[in-house]
Every structure is written in structure tokens, then in C-alpha cells.
């Protein structure tokens, strides 16, 4: 592998890793704060992608479609938390699995019903459709850089909110001692609704920004969900910092494995997970 190819693969790996972080951070946030294991988290990725497809065709503007799709994803998140997840707080993880797997079936059926099962695509917006010349023969698409920038911006914003705002302190306190947060006069139900809605919107946003570089197919949500679980387990359940490090690790390893070890690329991230769990059974950053 020459240097320019290496560079392109590294950029691809980082970009994929950042995207995984966007999805995994929502999953791990909801798990860490609320103790809810949301298996329908991947479905929100799919919903985001299909929504942006739909609204791009309707409005003829990708960026407007992004805003609308995010808003709808957030509303879906609020509805799911208020009407369904709210019944699960006192129950164990198995009940959570039953309900959220049920949601996967509902979302997949809805997707098939509304958009059909043929692969769909979203055009890269014209303003981001060019490429950057890395070397004489290698170029890198601007849109992929755009995805990375969006993910980094979200990561920085999350870091700031969680570490430096009162809302962030309440969220962390909720992770540590839920009853005490309530005993300080914080409406924990509202806090949970916010966390859940933001968590699923992050997943939807990942689907939204990747829509122009993937094909929209049924089952796309489940595929990312599994990679996402690998990230969350490697990073440490509930740790956002862990999710960030693990997502980059998984993104880079997965990308290079598919170039260097095409025969066994599909299992490399699981090998990586197994190796890390041998030395760090709780993941890299135990929450």
C-alpha cells in the first residue's frame, strides 16, 4: 500500500469511525443515564436516511431536508419515550429488549410500506460534490470531509454540554444517583425525555448525513446497530469518551481490514472487541 492510498484509507476510517461515534454516543448516553437498552437505535439511523431522501425530493434542498428530518426524528424520540419507554424504567433489560425489538419490526414494516424495498439514493448536494486533490492521482470527496466535520462539531458540542452546563451536570448526576437528582427538585421524567430524544436524534443524524454516500436499503439500521454495540462494549457501557475512542478504533480497523484482509474483514471488529475485553473486561472506559 503506498502512502497516498494509506492516507485515503485512514481518512475513510476516521470518517467511518466518527459516524459510528455519532450513533454510538446516543446509544451509550441513553443506556448510561436512563439504564435503557434501545435496540431500535439503529432503526433511527434508517429513519433518518429515508426521511432525508423523502424531504430532499419534496423540497429540492438537501440542507432543508436535514433540518426537517432531524426535527421529525426528535419528535419520534419524544413520542417513543413518553408513551413506551416510560413503562420500562422499573423493568429489567429483557422487557426493554422485547419492546425495542418490536419497534424494529414496526419501523422496518413502515419503511417497506412507505418507500418500498428497492434501494434508493440521495444525491450529494452540489455545493459539496467536488473532490480535493490529495496527490497527482488520488483525490478525496469533499462530502466525506463534510461528514467528519459535522461529527466532530457534534462531539465538541456534546462534550461542552455534558461537562460545562447545568443540564450536563444533571445528566451526569442522573447517571450516578437518580433518586437524589429528583430529591433536588429536578423533573427527572423531563430530563429522560430530553436525553432519549437527543440520543435517537444523534442516530438519525448519522443516517441523514450518510444518506448521500450509502444506498438506502431495508435492514440498514440493524447493520449499524451491531457495529454500534461493538463500539459501546469496547468503549465501556455508558461512557461517551469511551464511545469516541472505540468508534475511531473500530472505524479505522474495519476500513483497513477490508483493504488488507478482504477475506476476513467481516470478523475483524469482533476480534478487536474480544482482544480488548480480555484485557479490559469492562471496556476501555468504565462508566
Amino acid at each position: 500500500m503506498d502512502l497516498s492510498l494509506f492516507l485515503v484509507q485512514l481518512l475513510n476510517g476516521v470518517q467511518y469511525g466518527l459516524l459510528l461515534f455519532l450513533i454510538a454516543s446516543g446509544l451509550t448516553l441513553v443506556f448510561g443515564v436512563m439504564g435503557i437498552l434501545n435496540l431500535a437505535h439503529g432503526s433511527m439511523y434508517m429513519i433518518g436516511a429515508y426521511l432525508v431522501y423523502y424531504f430532499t425530493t419534496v423540497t429540492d434542498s438537501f440542507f432543508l431536508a436535514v433540518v426537517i428530518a432531524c426535527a421529525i426524528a426528535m419528535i419520534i424520540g419524544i413520542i417513543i419515550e413518553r408513551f413506551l419507554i416510560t413503562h420500562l424504567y422499573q423493568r429489567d433489560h429483557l422487557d426493554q429488549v422485547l419492546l425495542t425489538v418490536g419497534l424494529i419490526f414496526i419501523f422496518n414494516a413502515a419503511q417497506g410500506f412507505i418507500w418500498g424495498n428497492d434501494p434508493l439514493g440521495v444525491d450529494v448536494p452540489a455545493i459539496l460534490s467536488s473532490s480535493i486533490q490529495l496527490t497527482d492521482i488520488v483525490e478525496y470527496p469533499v462530502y466525506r470531509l463534510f461528514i467528519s466535520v459535522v461529527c466532530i462539531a457534534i462531539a465538541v458540542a456534546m462534550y461542552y454540554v455534558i461537562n460545562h452546563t447545568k443540564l450536563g451536570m444533571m445528566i451526569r448526576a442522573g447517571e450516578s444517583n437518580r433518586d437524589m437528582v429528583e430529591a433536588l427538585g429536578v423533573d427527572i421524567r423531563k430530563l429522560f425525555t430530553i436525553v432519549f430524544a437527543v440520543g435517537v436524534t444523534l442516530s438519525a443524524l448519522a443516517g441523514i448525513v450518510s444518506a448521500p454516500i450509502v444506498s438506502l436499503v431495508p435492514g440498514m439500521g440493524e447493520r449499524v446497530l451491531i457495529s454500534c454495540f461493538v463500539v459501546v462494549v469496547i468503549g465501556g457501557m455508558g461512557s461517551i469518551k469511551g464511545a469516541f475512542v472505540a468508534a475511531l478504533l473500530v472505524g479505522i480497523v474495519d476500513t483497513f481490514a477490508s483493504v488488507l484482509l478482504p477475506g476476513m474483514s467481516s470478523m475483524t471488529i469482533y476480534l478487536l472487541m474480544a482482544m480488548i475485553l480480555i484485557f479490559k473486561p469492562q471496556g476501555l472506559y468504565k462508566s
Partner: protein
Amino acid sequence: MSDYILQVKGLHTLYGESHILHGLSFDVKRGQTVSIMGRNGMGKSTTLKSVLGIVKPRSGSVLYKGEDIGSSPTWKRMRNDIAYVPEGRGMFHNLTVKEHLQMAARKNSRSEEHWSYDQVLDVFPRLQQRLTNKGTQLSGGEQQMLAIGRALLTNPDLLILDEATEGLAPLIRKEIWDVIRKIKQSGVSTIIVDKNIKVLHELCEQHILIVKGKVIFNGDSTELDAKREFIESNLAV
């Protein structure tokens, strides 16, 4: 305006099958400091938790400032200017001392601020040195100071302290009692669960003894003196 900040009537609270509170009643006048005494397992903490809605009584009523708050969730009761320092202090392992205080700070429901961040640190100079430590890295005494400081920053009208000085070194206890005296002077109504009858006698206007989920003594410090032996026999292990 009701003369009473808190009126508890006929509370029956159960944990599963076990009946903890048996028709427990007591009142707290505005501005008073009231002690609740009793051996472990007699229902003191359950009484406080029932008042706050952390556990739901099967029957009975809780009136706060004359209004029945029995159906409000805990957080709403606290928003009406009640603060709680739980047994075990309720520290957050992932928040620093400074963050514990910042996340709790708010004006009371009348938009008044009697306790500011700086005032709380003035009262607890020990916390000043530990601002960047995590809540659970503190000693027991420091944790209790932080829990009280955090409660004060919500600017309460009623402060509820469960096991105010339990398990603390004598010197630290003294500091905590001194602060509770200051809180009393500021006019905040306070309920203190503790076993130190000597300090409570001097500090509180009213004393309540709970045995097996019932109030078996309720009186002022003079009445406490008259029945001192009886009460002490009910506190001895």
C-alpha cells in the same frame, strides 16, 4: 397562611408486606426546628421518605404549607422549597464538589436567594479546598457538609436532615451542629433525625420519638426533660 409548614396525618406506609408506619402523625410549625428520634428500623427514614413522596404511603395525608401534596411527585414537592439531606448523603460519584453545588443551586419559588454559592463556601470552608474533588472522594464529614450545602443552595423553607451526624468524628459533628444553628437562625424550618439527645434538646423546640412506626412522644424541650429517662431508654441499643 397556615401556621404549620408541615402537617402529617395518619400515615400508613408499607414496604411490600411489611407494615412500617402505623398511622403516624405530627406537625411542624413554621420556623421551628424539630427533632425526630428513635432506634434504627423504627421508621424515621420511612417517615421522611413518605413526606417527600420517595415512598408512597398507603393512606394518610401530608399537608405542606396547608396544601395537600400527597399526589405530587417528589421533584415538585422539592420545587416548593423543601430540601433533603438523605441518610448516606446522596453523593454523585462523577460530579466535583463545585458541580454538586452548581447543579443544585436555584432561587426559591418566590425568586428569593438567601444562600449563594459563596455563602455556602463561607459556612463550609473545608469544601473550599476540595472543589475539584469528586463527591465520593470526600470524607464522611465533608460529604455531609456538601450534602447540606447543596440543600441550602436550593433556598429551602423546610430542610430535612436524615442522620445529621451519624458516623462522624466528634470535631466534625460539632461543625455540623454549628452550621445547623446558623440555618436555624436564618429562619428555615428544619426536621433533624439524629440520636444525640443532648444537642437536640438545646437546638430543637419540638421533639418526636418514633417507636415501631408510631409517635410515642411529641413535646417541647421541657416535656422532654420530664420524660428524659423514658426517651433515653427508647434510644439505647
